[in-house]
């Protein structure tokens, strides 16, 4: 971190010399990031400080901009799935799902029940994974080091489940257009059951460490509040807006992928709109996600895991080797992909951070014409300037942590 003294505009340059009497207060410009550990990724914020008070905060983005949207325009529809989980590296399956739902809507493709319920189960495990990383790092920022180890311990179990399903811990690309990439592995239900049965007791552990911890409470209660209407105008979504007393959840209001069967509960009792209530909302969601994952596991229907659409979904390996038709479909899908009817679509999905939606345009070709990712981190981070305004610099780290953004999701 480097800091320099700058003069406000109303002082002439020579007035800064040592002899000249100080006419007005000096502001300090403080450069926070992009390598500051508390910015949770490569975010740079230029702070103007008046003593300990933040006068202005200007975020500087783009350090993780990798041109994913441009790259998608040269991939076929199915290939582009692998790019979706590389932007938000903590909510890969939610991103896969948002993309797949959009393309399936344009294709008019019906996904079998087994794939839908698996999607629900895995997206809830994704939420647990993401919230655990948030809780660990957020608590670490405030000096609670052991929380980080406990959270990473349970997160490892979730990642093992992802690896069991897809072969990958993080970049799963498991949700594909038309269903899933692979059928369930053998013995999956026992392993998922072991996790969801054990996890609620772990949440109790976390809460016993934090809920009544005087340092935690002093640093979070009443910190980082903002007017609800302003938050909505800024495009804030997810746990942040729920902690402000707006019970909005895409899973409830616009159910997708059979969420309506599971009766998602939205927390309504935390309305103080401060860092502490954002923590309470996410702890509620950890329990709720665990319950939903369990319910989905128990209600898992039998049947195919992919839609019956030979021109879109890759054929079974055995069929490809023995049936001429399957071999032709396989060759066509791998070489030139499939075409999607011309049109546009915007399907919102509730990611761990809020509303994620892919605005997609097809010109009738085998590649997306344009994909614009409406990512929750982007919308939430935009509120940073307003959240920091006229607040103490000591509170800025708590506020920043409570926003739970992923810079890969913001910059794409």
């Amino acid at each position, binding site marked *: 971190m480097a800091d320099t003294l700058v003069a406000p505009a109303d002082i002439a340059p020579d007035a800064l010399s040592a002899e000249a009497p100080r006419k007005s207060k000096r502001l300090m410009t403080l450069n926070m990031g992009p390598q500051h550990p508390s910015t949770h990724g490569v975010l740079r914020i230029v702070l103007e400080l008046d003593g300990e008070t933040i006068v202005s905060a200007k975020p500087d983005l783009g350090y993780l901009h990798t041109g994913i949207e441009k790259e998608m325009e040269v991939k076929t529809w199915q290939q582009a799935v692998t790019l979706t989980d590389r932007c938000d590296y903590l909510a890969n399956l939610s991103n896969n799902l948002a993309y797949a739902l959009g393309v399936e809507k344009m294709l008019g493709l019906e996904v079998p029940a087994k794939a839908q319920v698996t999607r629900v189960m895995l997206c809830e495990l994704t939420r647990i994974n993401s919230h655990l990383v948030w809780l660990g790092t957020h608590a670490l920022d405030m000096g609670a080091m052991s929380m980080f180890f406990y959270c990473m311990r349970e997160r490892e179990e979730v990642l093992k489940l992802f690896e069991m399903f897809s072969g990958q811990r993080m970049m799963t690309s498991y949700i594909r257009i038309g269903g899933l990439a692979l059928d369930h592995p053998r013995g999956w239900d026992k392993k998922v059951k072991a996790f969801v049965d054990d996890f609620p007791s772990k949440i109790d552990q976390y809460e016993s460490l934090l809920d009544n911890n005087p340092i935690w409470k002093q640093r979070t209660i009443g910190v980082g509040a903002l007017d609800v209407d302003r938050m909505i105008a800024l495009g804030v979504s997810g746990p942040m807006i729920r902690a402000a007393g707006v019970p909005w959840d895409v899973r409830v209001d616009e159910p997708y992928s059979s969420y309506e069967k599971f009766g998602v509960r939205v927390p309504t009792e935390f309305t103080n709109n401060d860092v502490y209530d954002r923590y309470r909302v996410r702890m509620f969601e950890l329990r709720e996600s665990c319950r939903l994952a369990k319910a989905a596991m128990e209600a898992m229907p039998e049947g195919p895991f992919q839609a019956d659409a030979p021109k879109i979904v890759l054929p079974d390996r055995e069929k490809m080797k023995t049936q001429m038709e399957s071999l032709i479909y396989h060759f066509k899908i791998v070489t030139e992909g499939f075409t999607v009817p011309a049109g546009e679509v915007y399907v919102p999905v509730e990611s761990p951070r809020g509303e994620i939606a892919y605005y997609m345009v097809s010109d009738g070709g085998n590649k997306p014409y*344009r994909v*614009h990712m409406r990512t929750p981190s982007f919308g939430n981070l*935009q509120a940073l300037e307003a959240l920091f305004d006229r607040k103490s610099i000591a509170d800025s780290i708590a506020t920043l942590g409570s926003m739970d953004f992923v810079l890969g999701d913001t910059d794409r």
Partner: protein
Amino acid sequence: MDNSHIAALGGLVLEASDTLNEATVHVAAEKIIEVLSLLKSRGFNRLSAVSGVDWHPQEPRFELVYNLHALPLKGGKQERIRVKCRVSGAAPEIASAVPVWEGAGWYEREIFDLLGVTFTGHPDMRRLLMPDGWVGHPLRKDFPIHGHKYDYAENK
């Protein structure tokens, strides 16, 4: 789709559609602020996203897409609507939606950065994602996927 919104917009609507159950209205670029303010007063309190699409070599080239969301704070049904308009490729310019929704700020900066559409009246019209000294707008269809060969010696 709730047709009362279309009726309220009246002559401002050039074309309305309901493909895939997603309400869409096309309007003239000069009327965009009028349309967005009217829809905001009719309950669309959230601007979900602003997207830009390059239809090169068609003219008018750039399409701006405003995805609006009515989020009821005190119960009721939520709703979505999409407002689209086109601006020319020669001098792409449109009024900024920041006075209507503060949250439009970064989306417009992103479009300015990646597609090169200028938003008049925007309080902070700078690049958002690309480096400040970058030349060109990478999401344009005539911008090659591997970028332009950049001569560092010449640009020192």
